[in-house]
């Protein structure tokens, strides 16, 4: 119990809210990326061929949204998948979810997905490529967890359907041909202590990379979910020793607004 806590840092709420700690590529005005990364005229308002995403995710995606006809891989099933679909759902898009019987609908609704425009196919079965192709015909966003790793041929067939229908396939898993890959590198829960408090919010470090111009990884800290279940930008937080090796017991802790101790799990 409590293993691995080596350092407890106290941050006051003011510090935490207002001070943007120096990070790799965060500038004041959280959503603006350094000029080199901004595609001219493309990252501000998504156009016809781009499905909108939540504002905090714009900087992580080429063209500032989900490019129609593209595949986005979200690493594994997590709330990040829901957050990716939420922006378009708010905008009126229909979303189908295949192969994820464990999807928490309330969490999805809190993240911004309209549950009235959500369709769940718990088990697409062995014929899942056909099911996905049918869904792509009617739904702007299809969230898929493939039951197995698809062969290259199968994968290309699904990708062709994605392009043909101009939809977006968000894969909760790996997808070799994905234009963009996102994953959660680190996360910390706040609000819960040892025997007291409760889970209130989670700060995650989302890393995005992809192909071509988007090959260089970029990083964002998000509240995923925030205290009310929504997804918002979080200030960068420099973990003293929260390095990627993680296993060495270099977890660190900090306090959230209410002073409860939160412990980071190194990714």
């Amino acid at each position, binding site marked *: 119990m409590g293993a691995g806590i080596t350092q407890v840092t106290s941050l006051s709420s003011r510090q935490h809210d207002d001070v943007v700690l120096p990070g790799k590529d965060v500038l004041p005005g959280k959503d603006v990326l350094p000029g080199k990364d901004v595609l001219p005229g493309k990252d501000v308002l998504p156009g016809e061929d781009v499905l909108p995403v939540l504002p905090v995710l714009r900087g992580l995606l080429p063209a500032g949204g989900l490019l129609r006809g593209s595949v986005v891989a979200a690493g594994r099933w997590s709330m990040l998948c829901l957050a990716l679909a939420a922006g378009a759902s708010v905008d009126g898009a229909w979303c189908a979810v295949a192969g994820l019987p464990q999807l928490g609908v*309330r969490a999805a609704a809190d993240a911004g997905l309209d549950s009235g425009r959500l369709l*769940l*196919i*718990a088990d697409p079965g062995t014929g899942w490529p056909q099911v996905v192709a049918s869904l792509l015909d009617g739904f702007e966003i299809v969230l898929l967890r493939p039951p197995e790793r698809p062969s290259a041929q199968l994968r290309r067939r699904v990708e062709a359907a994605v392009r043909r229908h101009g939809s977006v396939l968000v894969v909760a898993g790996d997808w070799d041909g994905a234009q963009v890959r996102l994953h959660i590198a680190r*996360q910390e829960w706040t609000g819960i202590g040892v*025997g007291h408090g409760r889970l209130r919010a989670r700060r995650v470090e989302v890393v995005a990379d992809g192909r071509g111009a988007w090959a260089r990884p970029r990083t964002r800290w998000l509240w995923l*979910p925030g205290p009310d*279940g929504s997804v918002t930008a979080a200030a960068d937080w420099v973990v003293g020793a929260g390095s990627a090796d993680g296993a060495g017991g270099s977890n660190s802790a900090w306090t959230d607004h209410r002073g409860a101790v939160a412990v980071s*799990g190194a990714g």
Partner: protein
Amino acid sequence: MNAVGGMRRRVLVLYCPGWSSSAQRSPAQDEQAGPGAQDLDRVISVLEEFCPQVEVLHPGVCAISVRGPARYFGGEEELARKISEAIIRRGLDCRTGIADGLFTAVLAARAEPSGAVVPPGGAAAFLAPFPVTALEIPELDDLLPRLGITTLGEFAALPAAVAANRLGAQGVLAHRLARGLDPRPLVPRQPAADLSVEWEFDPPAEQSEPVVFAAKALADQLQAGLAARRLACVRMRVQAVCEDGREIIRLWRYDGLLSAVAVAERVRWQLESWRTSQDLGAGAAGGRADGRADGRAVGPGGGITLLRLTPDQLVRDEGRQLGLWGDAVVSDRVARAAAGVQAMLGHGAVTRPVLAGGRSPAEQVLLVPFGDAAAPLLPAGRPWPGNIPAPAPATVYPAPLSARITDSSGTPVTVTGRVQMSDFPALLSAGGGPPLAVISWAGPWPATERWWDPPRARRRARFQIVTEDGSAWLAVVQDGRWLIEASYDLMAYYWDGARVTGTVPSYRDGARAPTEYRRNR
């Protein structure tokens, strides 16, 4: 707007309670939650002994016209009794209701304990005590009570013109229902032209696919014919004829207007129920053996030679008025895609979530098959003391994972009836995976649910637990057993930062995972 007088159509509705409630179950609980083709066929073959034309309203609810059969079988009550007995003898539970008009008959059939017979002209009086929600028109469920109208009787007492002014076309429909009338006046004249469409198969179709394909084309053709006459069809007669001349006729009702894919889907169900049918009714004894011997044959008497679709009930196509704001309108494109998937996986495999009330995350969502309407059993938006505070978990296991939570000495943590814990939790292992160190936790939060109902009562205590890998879990202990009901995001399935040490917990049954977790970096 005036076809009120005259002979009212007497209708018998057969309601199979256990069957239709399959829509209320999640597909995980009910693996074969499809259309229940076999039961459907059993019920229909029984009903066909009483009346040749059976209308399937939706799975679990069938209707027949009473007039002829009642005279033959010695009165309405007698007919209802005989039908129930025949169905119960086949091992299915059922209730029957007889009334003027379909809406009243459906409610009569749902009456406890075994349905009701509403005398002619008594529909309005029978309907009066029902709440307005019985109309199943979501827009009015909320509006009418706010206007002080809680029962159908109060609603029916309003002048029709007032209902029309205030509530529009939908209000007129609802008001007619509440008065015990048919929702829309039927078109008084017979359609002058024969609107039926048919497709001959030469050679006969041995497989169901070409028949279903033809049905889709026929449905388009039918739709075009109807649209040209500004008619819409709410009921459709599907007739399939076999090589040896035998035929099966089904009536299908579809809420909303029938789309081509919806029609094709129903034809597929009809053919499937036929193939799996055990009892083909009178005169089938000869053809049954060969029909069953060849598992691929679609019909009992060889292949299908003819498929005919006849619009059986026509109404004026008044279009559908959509809500001005906020209605999640199912567009044709979405409906087509969803129906296409339903055709592949079965009716119950494609669901829409409805948020409901409850304490545990699994209770808070009801999955309704696409195309069905169902109100949540437990209403959302009420306070549920003891529910899980926000944020909601992103992963809710359809069947909770078994778990082992131990203290630092390795003995399982227990919680007494007075919510005293034996020790702090130190290790968590879920679904047979490797143990993870607990770095923070909160709880126990006791919940004593349904203590008034011993078989369903349960006492449990919940915990939120964060483990060393950064994953957060919602654990529950009941009768000394630990279960993982839900998890906030898992960093990985037993991802310890450098390597994967476990397998993916199977979300289906909480048992051992079938697939190795592949992501090995």
